[in-house]
C-alpha cells in the first residue's frame, strides 16, 4: 500500500490522462501477480471485486470513533476537518501524520485487513480493528487504504483508466481487458489473466450486472439515414433492469448496477421457471390490463428491501423483456439483434416487448404516436445486424423521446462538493414559487461549467442565511433552467413533488426569483403524467 500510495500521489500531480495511465502502468509492471490483482482493485476504488458479494460495511459511524480514539481529537473536530478536506482518507491521514507511525502496509496485509473487516459481525470488532490499523501503519498508506473503502481515490483516475493502465502494463488490447472485466466483474482475476494472455478463458458470471447497451437520442426523423435498416420497439418509462436467472433463482439489477431483487417478489416468481443460465435486458413496469402505467405509479415500489402484500396488490409489476444477454450459459454480445430476438421469442417469456420493422421515415411519427397512445415514452430503434454493445452509447440504438419540458427554478440551498469540487458549492437544491414562498422540488449536481460553479459559489456565499455542516440555506436569488424526465410525488420536498433526473440547462441571469415557475405548474405536469 505504501508504494501504491506513492504511485497514486504521483498520478494526482501528473498532467493529463496519458501521463497518469503511463505512471500507473509503470507501477503495475513492478508487481507480482498477486499484488497486481490487489493493486488494480484498490486503484479503482474497490476493496473486493464487483462480483464478490462481500461488503465492508464501514462508514463514518465506525471510522470516526476509531480515529478519535487514536488521535484524541473529538468527533466535532474530526467532522470539521473532513468538511474542509472533502475526503475521508485524506482527512484521516492528515490527522494521523503527526503521530509518526512508520510501519509500512503491504498489499497482502491490506487484503487481509479488508477480509477481516468484512468478516467482523459486530461494530465493536470493526472498531477494534480500525483502531489497531490507525495505531500501526504509515499515514500515507492509510490514506489510500481508506480511499479504496470510500470508493473514490480522487486522483483523476477513473476505473476506465485503470483498465487502460492494466492493458498497457500487460501489452493486451484495452477492449479485451474491458470486455473481460464487464463479463466477470472481477478486475483482480482479469489482471492476472491479462498478464498471462488468458483473458479468453474468463467467462461471464451470472448474478453480477453487465453494462447495459445505451441509446443515442434521435432528434429528428430526417437524421435517420436508410430507414429500412431499423427495428422499432416502444420505449418504456419504467426501471431498466437485467434479470439473471439460473436453477430457479432470479436476481434483478438496475441501470446503476444496483441490485433490486428484494423489491419485486412477483417478478422472481414469474421468471424462476425459465431455462438458465439466462440474462434478460428489459424494463420493470407497473402493469395493468395489458399496458404499462406511468412511472409515478411505479414509484412506491422502488428501492424497497421489503414489500407488503397490499403494495403488491395496489401496484402490480412485471418484467418486460426486450433483449437477451445470455442464453444457455452463453453470452450473446456477439449475436446479431435479429437472432437474439428469435431466441428471446422461443423462451416462453411471460412478457416480451413487441418489435416491428421500419420501412419508411414517415412511419417514425406514426409509431411514436401509437407508443404514446399506449402510455409509453417513445421509441427505441435498433439497427439491423447490430451486436449488443455492452456499456456503449454507440448509435446502434436510437431513442425517440418527446422532451418532457423545462422549468425555471430558484436555488434555495447549496452544498459543498466532494474531492475536486470540495472547494465549491456545486450541489444545489432548487424550488418553485408558491405565492410569496419557494418550495423545493429537487436537487441537481450537473450541467454547469466549472467556471459558472465558481462564480455561483461566490454568489451563494454572499446569499447564505444559515449553514448546517456542508449545506447552506440561501436567500432565493439565483434562477436556473432545469430539464427533467418526469414529475413524481415526494415526501422529502416541501412542494410535495420531485423532478426526475433533473439537470441544469443554464443559469438564467436574465430572470428574477419571482419569474420562476410555480408549484401549480408542477402539479399540472404531474397530473397529466398520470392521465397519459
Amino acid at each position, binding site marked *: 500500500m505504501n508504494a501504491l500510495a506513492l504511485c497514486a500521489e504521483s498520478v494526482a500531480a501528473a498532467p493529463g490522462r496519458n501521463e497518469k495511465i503511463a505512471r500507473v502502468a509503470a507501477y503495475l509492471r513492478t508487481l507480482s501477480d498477486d499484488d497486481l490483482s490487489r493493486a488494480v482493485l484498490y486503484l479503482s476504488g474497490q476493496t473486493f471485486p464487483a462480483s464478490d458479494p462481500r461488503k465492508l460495511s464501514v462508514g463514518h459511524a465506525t471510522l470516526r470513533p476509531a480515529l478519535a480514539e487514536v488521535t484524541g481529537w473529538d468527533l466535532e473536530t474530526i467532522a470539521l476537518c473532513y468538511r474542509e*478536506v472533502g475526503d475521508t482518507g485524506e482527512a484521516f491521514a492528515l490527522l494521523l501524520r*503527526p503521530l509518526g507511525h512508520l510501519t509500512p502496509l503491504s498489499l497482502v496485509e491490506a487484503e487481509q485487513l479488508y477480509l477481516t473487516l468484512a468478516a467482523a459481525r459486530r461494530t465493536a470488532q470493526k472498531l477494534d480493528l480500525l483502531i489497531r490499523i490507525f495505531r500501526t501503519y504509515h499515514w500515507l498508506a492509510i490514506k489510500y487504504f481508506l480511499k479504496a473503502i470510500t470508493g473514490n481515490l480522487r486522483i483523476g483516475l477513473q476505473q476506465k483508466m485503470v483498465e487502460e493502465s492494466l492493458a498497457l502494463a500487460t501489452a493486451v488490447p484495452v477492449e479485451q481487458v474491458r470486455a473481460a472485466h464487464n463479463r466477470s466483474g472481477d478486475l483482480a482475476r482479469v489482471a492476472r489473466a491479462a498478464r498471462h494472455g488468458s483473458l479468453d478463458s474468463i467467462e461471464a458470471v451470472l448474478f453480477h450486472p453487465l453494462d447495459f447497451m445505451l441509446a443515442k437520442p434521435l432528434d429528428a426523423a430526417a437524421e435517420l439515414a436508410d430507414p429500412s435498416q431499423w427495428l422499432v420497439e416502444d420505449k418504456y418509462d419504467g426501471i431498466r433492469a437485467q434479470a439473471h436467472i439460473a436453477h430457479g433463482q432470479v436476481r434483478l439489477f438496475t441501470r446503476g448496477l444496483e441490485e433490486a431483487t428484494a423489491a419485486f417478489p412477483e417478478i422472481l416468481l414469474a421468471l424462476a421457471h425459465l431455462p438458465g443460465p439466462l440474462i434478460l435486458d428489459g424494463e420493470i413496469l407497473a402493469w395493468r390490463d395489458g399496458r404499462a402505467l406511468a412511472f409515478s405509479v411505479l414509484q412506491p415500489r422502488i428501492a424497497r428491501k421489503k414489500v407488503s402484500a397490499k403494495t403488491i396488490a395496489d401496484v402490480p409489476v412485471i418484467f418486460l423483456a426486450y433483449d437477451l444477454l445470455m442464453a444457455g450459459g452463453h453470452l450473446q454480445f456477439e449475436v446479431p439483434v435479429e437472432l437474439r430476438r428469435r431466441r428471446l421469442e422461443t423462451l416462453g417469456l411471460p412478457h416480451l416487448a413487441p418489435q416491428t420493422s421500419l420501412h419508411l421515415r414517415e412511419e417514425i411519427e406514426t409509431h411514436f404516436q401509437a407508443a404514446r397512445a399506449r402510455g409509453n415514452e417513445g421509441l427505441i430503434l435498433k439497427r439491423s445486424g447490430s451486436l449488443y454493445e455492452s456499456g456503449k452509447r454507440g448509435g446502434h440504438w436510437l431513442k425517440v423521446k418527446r422532451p418532457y419540458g423545462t422549468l425555471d427554478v430558484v436555488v434555495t440551498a447549496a452544498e459543498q462538493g466532494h474531492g475536486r469540487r*470540495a*472547494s465549491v458549492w456545486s450541489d444545489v437544491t432548487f424550488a418553485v414559487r408558491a405565492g410569496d414562498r419557494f418550495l423545493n422540488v429537487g436537487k441537481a449536481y450537473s450541467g454547469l461549467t466549472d467556471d459558472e460553479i465558481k462564480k455561483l459559489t461566490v454568489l451563494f456565499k454572499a446569499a447564505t442565511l444559515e449553514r448546517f455542516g456542508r449545506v447552506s440555506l440561501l436567500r432565493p436569488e439565483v434562477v436556473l433552467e432545469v430539464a427533467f424526465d418526469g414529475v413524481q410525488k415526494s415526501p422529502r420536498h416541501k412542494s410535495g413533488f420531485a423532478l426526475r433526473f433533473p439537470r441544469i440547462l443554464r443559469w438564467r441571469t436574465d430572470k428574477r426569483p419571482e419569474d420562476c415557475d410555480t408549484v401549480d405548474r408542477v402539479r399540472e405536469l404531474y397530473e397529466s403524467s398520470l392521465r397519459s
Partner: protein
Amino acid sequence: MEIAFRNEGIYLPQIDLWLDPRALVEHAWLSHAHSDHARGLHSTVIGTRATLAIYRHRWPLPPGRLQQILPLNPNESLDWRGARLTPLRAAHILGAAQLLIEYQGERIVYTGDIKLRAPICGWPTQLVSCDRLIIESTFGLPIYQFLDASAARARIVLFAQETLAAGLTPVFLGYGLGRGQEIVHTLTQAGLPCSVHGAIAGLLPYYEAEGYEFPGWQPYQRRKVETSALVVTPGMQDSLAIPSAQVRVALVSGWAAVDSARARSGADVLIPYSDHASFPELLEMVHASGASHIDVVHGYTEPFARLLRLRGHNAHAAGTAVPTEVQV
C-alpha cells in the same frame, strides 16, 4: 484593558489605538504590509520601518495630505497615551511584527499574522509572556501542517530543476507580497533563471534594502515564451503566452496542505509552505505566552477557540462574526 472587536478592526478605546483597521481611523498599528492589514491613510500609522516603507509604496501620500508616521525597530518602545507599545519580531513577511501593549500593569500581545518557524525572507518570531494574547487562526485546524523553510526551498528548487530538465516551463504561484519574493529568492540563490511578474518584482527593492539578494532575475514579459522559471500571482497561469501543455504549475501556499487545492488553483504540484502558523505552531505559541485570556481572530476562530478551551485555556473567538457598534 478594554478591547473592542469591531467590524473595522480591533480597537483599544483607553488609548485610542486601532490594530490593523480595515476602515479609515485616527491612529493605527500596522502589523505588516498585506493589504488586508495595512490599508488607507490613517492620521497616524505605527509599524516597523519595512512595513511602513511597503505600506507607503502601496498607499502613497497625496500632495498636501499630512500623516504622522511612527516607525519603530523591534523591541524599541513608544510611549503612547499612558501605554507602552513595543513591536516584537513576527515571522510572516518582511517587517512583520507583533505588538506588546503594556498598560497599567497588564501585558497584551497582538500577534498580527504570524508563524513560529523561521521564514525564507524575514525574521524569526520572538516569544514573550503576556497576560492576554490576541492570536490569528488562519490555519486553526489540525489538518494544516506545513514544510519548514529549508524543506520548502528544496522542493521549490527540485520542481524547477526537474521541470526545466524535461524541457517544460515551471510556473510558481505565490502571493504578490511575501511568498512571491521568497520563491524568487530561493530560485536566484540556487542559480536558476527566473522571470518575475511585476506585482512581485515591484516589491523586490524593499527586500534588497533589508539585505536580501536576487541575482539575475528578469522581468516577466507577457508575450515572450520563457525558457526560465516563472513566478506569478495565483490565477495568472491561465493568461501565459506558453501553451498549457508546455507548463507545469506549482502552488506554494498553506492551502496546498490539502489535495483539493490542486483543482482550486489549477496547480499540478502542491508545496505546502505558509507564512501563517500551522496548527501545532499555534498551540505552541499559545502555550509559550502563558496568557490567561486568549482572543482568536481570523480564520477558524470558533473551532480553534473551542480546541483551546478543551485544553483548559480561557479562549474566545473574537472574529467579526459578532458585529459590535458601528463606528462612524
